[in-house]
Protein backbone atom coordinates (compact mmCIF):
# COMPACT_ATOMS: atom_id res chain seq x y z
CA UNK A 1 0.00 0.00 0.00
CA UNK A 2 1.42 3.38 -0.98
CA UNK A 3 1.39 6.38 1.32
CA UNK A 4 -0.97 9.23 0.52
CA UNK A 5 1.10 12.27 -0.46
CA UNK A 6 -1.69 14.74 -1.31
CA UNK A 7 -1.23 16.67 1.93
CA UNK A 8 2.33 17.77 1.05
CA UNK A 9 2.38 21.56 1.09
CA UNK A 10 -0.72 21.85 3.28
CA UNK A 11 -0.71 24.49 6.01
CA UNK A 12 -2.64 24.61 9.29
CA UNK A 13 -3.70 27.54 11.49
CA UNK A 14 -1.02 29.26 13.53
CA UNK A 15 -0.95 28.95 17.30
CA UNK A 16 0.18 31.53 19.85
CA UNK A 17 1.97 30.98 23.16
CA UNK A 18 2.78 33.54 25.86
CA UNK A 19 6.02 32.75 27.70
CA UNK A 20 5.68 32.75 31.51
CA UNK A 21 8.44 32.95 34.14
CA UNK A 22 7.52 29.87 36.16
CA UNK A 23 7.07 27.76 33.01
CA UNK A 24 10.62 28.62 31.90
CA UNK A 25 11.93 27.76 35.40
CA UNK A 26 9.98 24.48 35.44
CA UNK A 27 11.34 23.53 32.01
CA UNK A 28 14.91 24.54 32.91
CA UNK A 29 14.72 22.33 36.02
CA UNK A 30 13.33 19.36 34.08
CA UNK A 31 16.15 19.40 31.51
CA UNK A 32 18.91 20.42 33.93
CA UNK A 33 19.70 23.75 32.25
CA UNK A 34 22.02 25.18 34.90
CA UNK A 35 22.73 28.71 33.67
CA UNK A 36 21.09 31.21 36.05
CA UNK A 37 19.84 33.27 33.07
CA UNK A 38 17.03 30.65 32.84
CA UNK A 39 15.82 31.39 36.38
CA UNK A 40 16.97 34.72 37.68
CA UNK A 41 15.87 38.08 36.25
CA UNK A 42 18.94 40.02 37.39
CA UNK A 43 21.31 37.41 35.95
CA UNK A 44 19.43 37.43 32.64
CA UNK A 45 19.46 41.22 32.40
CA UNK A 46 23.16 41.35 33.30
CA UNK A 47 23.80 38.95 30.41
CA UNK A 48 21.97 41.29 28.02
CA UNK A 49 18.52 39.68 27.85
CA UNK A 50 15.22 41.59 28.21
CA UNK A 51 14.07 39.14 30.88
CA UNK A 52 14.64 35.54 32.00
CA UNK A 53 15.55 33.66 28.81
CA UNK A 54 14.26 30.23 27.81
CA UNK A 55 16.70 27.35 27.15
CA UNK A 56 16.91 26.74 23.37
CA UNK A 57 14.98 23.46 23.52
CA UNK A 58 12.07 25.24 25.27
CA UNK A 59 11.03 25.77 21.64
CA UNK A 60 9.20 22.44 21.80
CA UNK A 61 6.87 23.87 24.46
CA UNK A 62 5.64 26.75 22.31
CA UNK A 63 5.87 25.15 18.85
CA UNK A 64 4.62 21.58 19.41
CA UNK A 65 0.96 22.61 19.92
CA UNK A 66 0.88 23.78 16.30
CA UNK A 67 1.82 20.25 15.20
CA UNK A 68 -1.22 18.58 16.80
CA UNK A 69 -3.79 19.36 14.08
CA UNK A 70 -1.26 18.49 11.37
CA UNK A 71 -0.51 15.05 12.75
CA UNK A 72 -4.20 14.30 13.40
CA UNK A 73 -5.41 15.56 9.99
CA UNK A 74 -7.19 12.68 8.16
CA UNK A 75 -5.91 14.11 4.87
CA UNK A 76 -2.37 13.40 6.10
CA UNK A 77 -3.52 9.99 7.28
CA UNK A 78 -0.86 9.14 9.86
CA UNK A 79 -1.47 5.90 11.79
CA UNK A 80 -0.61 7.17 15.28
CA UNK A 81 -0.32 3.64 16.70
CA UNK A 82 2.75 2.93 14.56
CA UNK A 83 4.22 6.45 14.43
CA UNK A 84 7.74 7.18 15.69
CA UNK A 85 9.43 10.53 16.08
CA UNK A 86 12.33 9.79 13.73
CA UNK A 87 14.19 13.05 13.53
CA UNK A 88 14.15 16.66 14.59
CA UNK A 89 15.98 19.82 13.62
CA UNK A 90 15.78 23.29 15.08
CA UNK A 91 17.42 26.44 13.74
CA UNK A 92 17.36 29.25 16.29
CA UNK A 93 17.08 32.99 15.72
CA UNK A 94 16.21 35.63 18.35
CA UNK A 95 16.31 34.35 21.95
CA UNK A 96 12.91 33.81 23.61
CA UNK A 97 12.36 35.66 26.89
CA UNK A 98 9.62 35.76 29.52
CA UNK A 99 6.75 37.95 28.29
CA UNK A 100 7.28 37.11 24.62
CA UNK A 101 4.24 36.10 22.58
CA UNK A 102 5.28 33.44 20.09
CA UNK A 103 3.29 32.60 16.97
CA UNK A 104 3.91 29.26 15.23
CA UNK A 105 2.85 28.38 11.70
CA UNK A 106 2.88 24.68 10.69
CA UNK A 107 3.23 23.23 7.18
CA UNK A 108 3.67 19.77 5.68
CA UNK A 109 6.93 19.83 3.69
CA UNK A 110 6.88 16.36 2.14
CA UNK A 111 5.52 12.84 2.45
CA UNK A 112 7.32 9.87 0.95
CA UNK A 113 7.74 6.14 1.28
CA UNK A 114 11.02 4.33 1.82
CA UNK A 115 11.71 0.72 2.83
CA UNK A 116 8.05 0.11 3.61
CA UNK A 117 7.87 3.10 5.95
CA UNK A 118 6.05 6.38 5.47
CA UNK A 119 8.06 9.56 6.14
CA UNK A 120 6.04 12.65 7.07
CA UNK A 121 8.09 15.84 7.24
CA UNK A 122 6.61 19.00 8.78
CA UNK A 123 8.02 22.47 9.33
CA UNK A 124 7.07 24.98 12.00
CA UNK A 125 8.16 28.61 11.84
CA UNK A 126 7.90 30.53 15.11
CA UNK A 127 8.14 34.30 15.43
CA UNK A 128 7.94 36.71 18.36
CA UNK A 129 5.69 39.75 18.88
CA UNK A 130 8.12 41.93 16.88
CA UNK A 131 7.95 39.59 13.89
CA UNK A 132 11.48 38.25 14.44
CA UNK A 133 11.95 34.55 13.73
CA UNK A 134 12.86 32.69 16.93
CA UNK A 135 13.00 29.10 15.71
CA UNK A 136 12.38 27.00 12.63
CA UNK A 137 11.63 23.35 13.35
CA UNK A 138 11.70 20.36 10.99
CA UNK A 139 9.81 17.37 12.40
CA UNK A 140 10.19 13.95 10.78
CA UNK A 141 7.63 11.32 11.77
CA UNK A 142 8.04 7.76 10.58
CA UNK A 143 5.10 5.37 10.26
CA UNK A 144 5.91 1.67 10.07
CA UNK A 145 4.06 -0.80 7.89
CA UNK A 146 2.40 1.57 5.43
Amino acid sequence: MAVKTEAAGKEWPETTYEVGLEKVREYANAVGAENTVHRDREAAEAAGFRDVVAPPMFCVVYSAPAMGPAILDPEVGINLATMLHGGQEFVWGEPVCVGDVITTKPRCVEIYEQDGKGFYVFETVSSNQDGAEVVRGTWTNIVRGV
Partner: protein
Amino acid sequence: MNVGDSIPELRTTPDKYLPHRYAGASGDFNPIHIDKEFATAVGLPSNILHGLWMMAQVARANAAVADGDPRALKRLSVQFRGMGFPEQELVVTGTVKEEADGKVVIDTVAAQGDNQVIRNAEAEVSVA
Protein backbone atom coordinates in the same frame (compact mmCIF):
# COMPACT_ATOMS: atom_id res chain seq x y z
CA MET B 1 38.05 24.78 19.41
CA ASN B 2 39.66 22.91 16.55
CA VAL B 3 38.56 20.12 14.26
CA GLY B 4 38.94 16.81 16.09
CA ASP B 5 38.53 18.32 19.58
CA SER B 6 36.06 16.62 21.92
CA ILE B 7 33.38 18.54 23.79
CA PRO B 8 33.16 17.96 27.56
CA GLU B 9 31.29 14.71 28.17
CA LEU B 10 27.86 15.18 29.73
CA ARG B 11 26.63 12.45 32.07
CA THR B 12 23.19 12.50 33.63
CA THR B 13 20.97 9.82 35.14
CA PRO B 14 17.25 10.55 34.83
CA ASP B 15 15.53 9.36 37.99
CA LYS B 16 12.36 7.26 38.03
CA TYR B 17 10.07 10.31 38.07
CA LEU B 18 11.98 12.49 35.57
CA PRO B 19 9.58 11.57 32.72
CA HIS B 20 6.69 12.85 34.87
CA ARG B 21 8.43 16.15 35.55
CA TYR B 22 9.37 16.52 31.88
CA ALA B 23 5.79 15.67 30.86
CA GLY B 24 4.54 18.50 33.05
CA ALA B 25 7.20 20.92 31.85
CA SER B 26 6.74 20.11 28.17
CA GLY B 27 3.05 19.22 27.96
CA ASP B 28 3.80 15.80 26.41
CA PHE B 29 1.79 13.33 28.49
CA ASN B 30 2.00 10.40 26.06
CA PRO B 31 1.46 7.42 28.41
CA ILE B 32 4.39 5.46 26.90
CA HIS B 33 6.62 7.91 28.82
CA ILE B 34 4.89 7.97 32.20
CA ASP B 35 2.94 4.74 32.60
CA LYS B 36 4.95 1.53 32.83
CA GLU B 37 1.85 -0.68 32.63
CA PHE B 38 0.64 1.07 29.49
CA ALA B 39 4.11 0.92 27.94
CA THR B 40 4.53 -2.80 28.53
CA ALA B 41 0.97 -3.44 27.27
CA VAL B 42 1.95 -1.93 23.90
CA GLY B 43 5.10 -4.03 23.70
CA LEU B 44 7.78 -1.76 25.14
CA PRO B 45 10.22 -3.06 27.76
CA SER B 46 9.24 -0.23 30.14
CA ASN B 47 8.15 3.38 30.02
CA ILE B 48 10.66 5.25 27.85
CA LEU B 49 12.29 8.66 28.03
CA HIS B 50 10.92 11.50 25.91
CA GLY B 51 13.09 11.84 22.80
CA LEU B 52 12.95 15.62 23.11
CA TRP B 53 14.27 15.44 26.69
CA MET B 54 17.23 13.45 25.36
CA MET B 55 17.64 16.04 22.60
CA ALA B 56 17.67 18.74 25.30
CA GLN B 57 20.64 16.92 26.90
CA VAL B 58 22.41 16.97 23.53
CA ALA B 59 21.65 20.71 23.29
CA ARG B 60 23.02 21.24 26.80
CA ALA B 61 26.24 19.35 26.05
CA ASN B 62 26.83 21.44 22.93
CA ALA B 63 25.95 24.80 24.54
CA ALA B 64 28.50 23.98 27.25
CA VAL B 65 31.32 24.77 24.80
CA ALA B 66 30.03 28.38 24.94
CA ASP B 67 29.61 28.36 28.75
CA GLY B 68 25.92 27.51 28.42
CA ASP B 69 25.08 30.76 26.61
CA PRO B 70 21.61 30.10 25.09
CA ARG B 71 22.48 32.40 22.15
CA ALA B 72 25.38 30.19 21.08
CA LEU B 73 23.39 27.19 19.84
CA LYS B 74 22.38 28.08 16.28
CA ARG B 75 21.18 24.75 14.93
CA LEU B 76 20.68 21.20 16.20
CA SER B 77 19.61 18.25 14.10
CA VAL B 78 19.12 14.75 15.56
CA GLN B 79 17.86 11.32 14.60
CA PHE B 80 16.10 9.25 17.24
CA ARG B 81 17.30 5.69 16.78
CA GLY B 82 16.79 3.96 20.10
CA MET B 83 14.66 3.99 23.21
CA GLY B 84 16.03 5.63 26.34
CA PHE B 85 15.07 4.47 29.83
CA PRO B 86 14.77 6.12 33.24
CA GLU B 87 17.31 5.16 35.92
CA GLN B 88 20.07 4.51 33.35
CA GLU B 89 22.94 6.93 32.86
CA LEU B 90 22.85 8.93 29.62
CA VAL B 91 26.25 9.91 28.22
CA VAL B 92 26.56 12.63 25.58
CA THR B 93 29.82 12.87 23.64
CA GLY B 94 30.81 15.01 20.69
CA THR B 95 33.62 15.89 18.32
CA VAL B 96 34.23 19.06 16.33
CA LYS B 97 34.07 18.23 12.62
CA GLU B 98 34.15 21.74 11.10
CA GLU B 99 35.39 25.09 12.31
CA ALA B 100 35.01 28.39 10.44
CA ASP B 101 34.06 32.03 11.03
CA GLY B 102 33.63 31.71 14.80
CA LYS B 103 31.32 28.71 14.48
CA VAL B 104 31.91 25.02 15.04
CA VAL B 105 29.91 22.05 13.80
CA ILE B 106 29.87 19.23 16.34
CA ASP B 107 28.98 15.58 15.74
CA THR B 108 27.19 14.29 18.83
CA VAL B 109 26.01 10.92 20.15
CA ALA B 110 23.84 10.20 23.19
CA ALA B 111 23.99 6.67 24.58
CA GLN B 112 22.94 4.52 27.51
CA GLY B 113 25.66 1.88 27.65
CA ASP B 114 25.91 0.40 24.13
CA ASN B 115 22.45 1.70 23.23
CA GLN B 116 22.90 4.80 21.05
CA VAL B 117 19.61 6.60 21.56
CA ILE B 118 20.55 9.64 19.46
CA ARG B 119 22.87 9.29 16.50
CA ASN B 120 24.00 11.52 13.66
CA ALA B 121 23.31 14.58 15.77
CA GLU B 122 24.86 17.71 14.37
CA ALA B 123 25.09 20.99 16.27
CA GLU B 124 26.23 24.37 15.05
CA VAL B 125 27.57 26.48 17.90
CA SER B 126 28.87 30.05 17.84
CA VAL B 127 32.17 30.26 19.73
CA ALA B 128 33.04 33.86 18.81
